[in-house]
């Protein structure tokens, strides 16, 4: 199981799901219509490192985070 966390303004509780890569995570999250806009604009981190591709293998206990558009300062 991997843990998926929604950061900042995405008001959604963390999810646990079976996934062996980010492609699997994408498949599951795209079934949730509430998430549609966020998926198009969010960056993705695996274990707190930002990634640039879905070709990232996941293992049990990994944490996937969704980071919507930012505005610090």
């Amino acid at each position, binding site marked *: 199981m991997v843990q998926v966390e929604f950061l900042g303004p995405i008001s959604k509780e963390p999810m646990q799901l079976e996934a062996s890569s980010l492609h699997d995570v*994408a498949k599951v999250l795209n079934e949730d219509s509430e998430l549609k806009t966020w*998926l198009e604009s969010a960056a*993705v981190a695996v274990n707190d490192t930002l990634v*640039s591709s879905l070709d990232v293998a996941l293992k049990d206990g990994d944490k996937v985070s*969704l980071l919507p558009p*930012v505005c*610090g*300062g």
Partner: protein
Amino acid sequence: MLELHNGALHVSEILARWCDEEARNNYGAYIPFVGTVRSEDSIDGLSFDIYEPILENWFSAWQFKAKEVGAIVKMAHSRGDVMLHESSYIAAVFSPKRRVALEMIDSFVEDFKASAPIWKYDLKGGNRIYAADRSTPIKNSGLLGKKS
């Protein structure tokens, strides 16, 4: 050094403390950038969420980059609510020479705006509203979106 404070920053205390910390380290240029909440769009203030693990990674990469040119960076940011005319953000560069400091404060602040995992909300009549229109997608955003 990265410091996160609950609520508004005490600007003078922070600027003076950083200056004292580096007073004997032979830096010729010290440039702080102070960000203050402006009164516009009838907001009462702003509020911030921060995701600290990624912010710390981002900041560490900048410390390393600064060190390569003999400089250091420091940063303070607010968590939670910051009201009008209060300050929520201070970034600073110390460097032996002025050109390095002037260029680095610019690129540091701009990269902060584009990349730091901090979310801003307008405080308006008791509501906390995500500032979507002023926010910037982090590099490589949208990976999980449906391909059109």
